[in-house]
């Protein structure tokens, strides 16, 4: 009991309070939650869910934004707002799958390299260097060219390189932690290596991973959008924001909304994840995570 007779705030509440005082983080969280909700509920919240497929309505083509069509219509008369919301699904799916594959691999390799050192460290970190030298976009392009362009192949190609950033991050944290007393204590008590890696060191990496994941989600979405802009993402008629920008670009500048507004949607989501990551970084006080 504290002096005033009230129970002290729990840890979670303290964190929540600090989080809610951070405008960047809150705005970011709101954007992310809005995007995810809209994407999940896309069939129910969009005004023209049937426009997702290969529908044509030539009477309504190239309509400027209006109360009926918030983002206007495209060259075959489909509602761009509805398609953009469905496009969010593809972007978010891409981020989830790529990070879901890349983070576990990157984190485990980073832990191993940082804790064991020696040959393990040399091999893992050199492979990381090689992967860093390949531009992810170029790699994805090459893979898409060799296989067939599809969402799955793009995701695989990006994930193949993305783990490196997490490996580098966890590696540097682990190296700092390796000589700390609590780790040495665990070693002295004869804890298994798995216990030390995953129960002693890993929990200390969680906040850094959270920040990195949030920032990364934005960047993965940008790369995915660039790929589909180049025609190597998910194939039509499934709506995709990058593809929409590309197909709208041939009608610039007269029908500007056809590429500019889907582009703004990409910007919106990427901004949300970035602000959230930035805010989390302040909250957890992990300065060096980018």
């Amino acid at each position, binding site marked *: 009991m504290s002096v005033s007779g009230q129970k002290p705030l729990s840890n979670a509440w303290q964190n929540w309070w600090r989080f809610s005082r951070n405008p960047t983080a809150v705005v970011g969280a709101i954007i992310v939650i809005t995007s995810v909700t809209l994407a999940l509920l896309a069939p129910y919240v969009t005004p023209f869910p049937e426009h997702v497929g290969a529908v044509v309505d030539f009477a309504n083509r190239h309509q400027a934004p209006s109360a009926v069509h918030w983002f206007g219509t495209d060259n075959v008369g489909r509602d761009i707002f509805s398609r953009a919301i469905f496009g969010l699904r593809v972007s978010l799916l891409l981020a989830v799958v790529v990070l879901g594959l890349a983070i576990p691999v990157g984190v485990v390799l980073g832990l191993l390299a940082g804790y064991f050192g020696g040959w393990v460290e040399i091999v893992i970190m050199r492979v990381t260097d090689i992967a860093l*030298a390949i531009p992810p976009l170029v790699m994805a392009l090459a893979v898409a060219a060799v296989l067939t362009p599809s969402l799955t192949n793009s995701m695989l190609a990006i994930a193949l390189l993305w783990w490196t950033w997490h490996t580098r991050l966890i590696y540097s944290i682990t190296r700092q932690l390796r000589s700390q007393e609590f780790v040495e204590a665990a070693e002295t008590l004869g804890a298994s290596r798995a216990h030390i890696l995953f129960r002693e060191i890993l929990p200390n990496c969680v906040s850094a991973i959270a920040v990195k994941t949030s920032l990364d989600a934005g960047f993965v979405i940008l790369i995915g959008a660039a790929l589909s802009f180049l025609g190597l993402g998910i194939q039509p008629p499934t709506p995709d924001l990058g593809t929409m920008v590309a197909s709208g670009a041939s009608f610039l500048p007269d029908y500007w909304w056809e590429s500019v507004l889907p582009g703004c949607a990409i910007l919106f989501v990427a901004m949300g994840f970035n602000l959230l990551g930035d805010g989390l970084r302040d909250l957890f006080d992990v300065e060096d995570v980018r």
Partner: protein
Amino acid sequence: MEFLAFLLRRLGWSLLVLLGLSVVIFTIARVVPGDPARMALGPTASADQVASLQESLGLNDPMFQQYATFLHGLARGDLGRSLLTEQSVTADIAKTFPATLELVICTILLAFALGVPLGVAAARWKDRWPDNLVRALAIGSAVMPTFFLALLLQILAGYVLNVLPTTGRLPGGIDFDAGWTGLVLVDSLIAGRGDVFLEAVRHLFLPTIALAAATMGQIARITRASMIDVSRQDYIEAARAFGVPDRLRMFKYMLRPAFVPPLTITGLEFASLIGNAFVVELIFSWPGMASYGIRAIVQKDLNAIMGVVMVSGVFFVVVNLMIDLLVGVVDPRVRIRGSRA
């Protein structure tokens, strides 16, 4: 001497990285697709044609021998023939690379020329409006899709204001190819062609801004952070206590050590800059290596794709070596201790 040893060691590692890169590229091009000969000839070719191309490409040799042949060619600068242009890939890339190099050099110069002063200003007036502006710029440039920024610039400067050319390297009327460095800016100056130089600058304007934005934001952010870091050091406190003028303290004693992190970041993020160059070149019809690469990808021209990825990797490695050298120049501690700070 320590620094020389450090550079030599880095050079050794770089060669190893390139060797690893060649394995990755070989795997993508030869192992993944199943049958490169069938891919090259298309579905209409007869089985005999495919078999004879397989034989002449050496595809029936064991995988290890194929890789050795590939590596041997690579060491001599032979990347094979492009199926698309029917010329050697090396010649094709040599022809297109200078345009990309010119774009990338201008991009990095612009990113530093704007990013560092912005970062310094933000650190100088921390938590005041210049700082908030720079932070907003940094986030904005980080989340702006490069292809979208390129399109917006094209609409704004090309169509709405109609002040700048939106495609190509030079206007159609000017046919300038001195063939010395391949960099139009440099060649036109050597040739004393001021008109060509001005046109080249005008054409470079938009693609450079589109490509530089993301890097500039990063540099501004990192410069700000490292300036603030340095300002908390004891020797800066001491300088302040001794009454060393603000400006002198900022530019002579703080900026130099604070300059290392932005340099390192630029090297690390150089790969994503090359990736973005693909999009920018495509949008602005810039006749560079990336445009060539995109054509190769659309046409499934395997040798050309491998060549472009390989050259991108070499470009990355070379730039990072140069940055190591620069860091040694800026930070004498690195020269003595022999490692990156």
